[in-house]
């Protein structure tokens, strides 16, 4: 349509574009500029070229952060997707009880990360937590210190994350199941296909796009994990749960190293862009296939 006055579309977009420019575009430029500085926010900044990137690479810090983030995210994606799919198959039926259980699982997705983090800190408390008590019922030894043991802490935090976001996978899989034609399932049943066979040959292939969507969106989201780590482990013990965003936060607010924090944020941004790019390509090949 023709605007009533030629200037109309511009003022309609002005506030949106202005805020996006000030809080998205301009900061990205600033981020790149800051990544080339040595700056502690207190004394004047000094230009150091690519030194921040070099020292992040050389110290092995970047690699360690990447590996930690990737392994925790993979556990979260695999765990929440399998749980979400299993629950979707279980709960894809009418009735108030099924609806209630659906809501219960999804509610964890709506409650804050802080709530969930604090709640599980208490449940997982090594001395007085419920899990430790259950452990003592079934074995005579002391319960493992889930959050104080560097070998266990990442998986404990990942498990809590799975509990929180399975509701997301559940909801998306339930929506996906609505697109599986009932007639095909009934035909397969008449042909004598077992439930397992019906799932393997009909439901699962038809859910492929949904699965891909859940996998990629949850992977990108769990790369940005921070709150639960900050609340439960503060990146520890011995940096075993220092994921990307926590590492950047730590550089900036605990070490006051703006340059290194910015350099790490730039790398993090590139990683996210690559993941998003991969997602885009996957979906394009999926559509043309």
């Amino acid at each position: 349509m023709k605007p009533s006055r030629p200037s109309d579309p511009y003022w309609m977009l002005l506030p949106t574009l202005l805020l996006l420019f000030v809080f998205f575009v301009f900061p990205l430029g600033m981020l790149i500029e800051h990544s080339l500085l040595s700056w502690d926010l207190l004394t004047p900044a000094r230009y150091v070229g690519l030194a921040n990137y070099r020292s992040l690479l050389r110290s092995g810090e970047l690699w360690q952060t990447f590996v930690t983030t990737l392994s925790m995210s993979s556990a979260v994606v695999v765990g929440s997707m399998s749980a979400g799919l299993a629950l979707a198959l279980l709960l894809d039926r009418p009735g108030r009880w099924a609806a209630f259980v659906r809501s219960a699982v999804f509610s964890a997705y709506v409650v804050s990360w802080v709530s969930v983090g604090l709640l599980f800190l208490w449940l997982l408390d090594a001395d007085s937590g419920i899990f430790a008590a259950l452990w003592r019922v079934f074995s005579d030894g002391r319960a493992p210190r889930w959050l104080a043991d560097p070998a266990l802490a990442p998986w404990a935090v990942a498990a809590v994350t799975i509990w929180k976001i399975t509701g997301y996978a559940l909801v998306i899989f339930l929506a996906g199941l609505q697109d599986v034609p009932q007639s095909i399932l009934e035909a397969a049943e008449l042909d004598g296909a077992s439930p397992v066979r019906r799932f393997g040959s009909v439901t699962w292939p038809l859910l492929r796009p949904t699965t891909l969507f859940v996998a990629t969106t949850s992977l990108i989201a769990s790369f940005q994990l921070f709150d639960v780590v900050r609340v439960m482990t503060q990146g520890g013990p011995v940096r075993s749960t220092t994921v990307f965003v926590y590492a950047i936060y730590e550089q900036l607010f605990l070490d006051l190293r703006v340059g290194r924090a910015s350099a790490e944020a730039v790398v993090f941004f590139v990683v996210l862009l690559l993941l998003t790019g991969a997602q885009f390509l996957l979906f394009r090949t999926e559509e043309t296939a």
Partner: protein
Amino acid sequence: MNLRGFRPKTWLRQGALCVVAVVWLFPYLWMGLTSLKPLAEIVSAPTALWPKQATLEAYREVFRSLPLARYFFNTSVMALGIAALQILLALPAGYALAKLRFRGKRWAFGLIVATLLVPAQVRFVPVFSLLASVGLVNTLSGLILPFGVSALGTFLVRQALLSVPDAQIEAARMDGAGELYIIYRLLAPLLRPTLISLFLFSFVSHWNDYFWPLVLTTDEHARTLPLAIALLREQGTGVRWHLVMAGNVLLSLPALAVFAAAQRHLLRAVTVRGFGG
């Protein structure tokens, strides 16, 4: 196999449903029960299911030790402010992008979609120094403005407006309606379900937000509830889990209440927008 109505498969399924319900609901129950226990019981019998002497003392103490009214006020103003601003700005922008012809439209649209790729976790480093340089750290404006525009919200409003027939807008123009009237009085009501979903989802995510207030507040002036409750534990409360859980109940109840009242809308928002803020 059907022996007098006993069907193993149904029972298996019911059993599985019960386990699932327990796994997802017990933590809330435990949070509530812990908050009702006195300190003595937390120390002596931390895993006893029911409090022997249920008391609201933990809540009273949390209210005594924290300026909760201020935190509730800050959190509500921030979350409502962000949700309202996002919708207020998304409507005219979405309208221009969906319905009007003008030079630079593809650029504007491209920019909005491109910003979807920049999460708060990437831009917080420079935005923090930016806001610090203009004195907006520790202010509610500093918490609201960086989220005043939702690129996704703008995009979804545009998509929804594409299906509104041009004729309806032209008819309103013939009747002498101005563009602002058309946007906020004619089109906004047509988009009600989309706008409600966006509003509620944005409200709940920002009510819950921990990251941004953590970065942007250093004292209690603009501190929000999630931050205060997390601090409750950090500030050396030791074994005083009843206090932390009482705070946790106060923090999670509003989100759960919105969920209970408007589950349908939140589900809609999640299925269209995917996961995350």
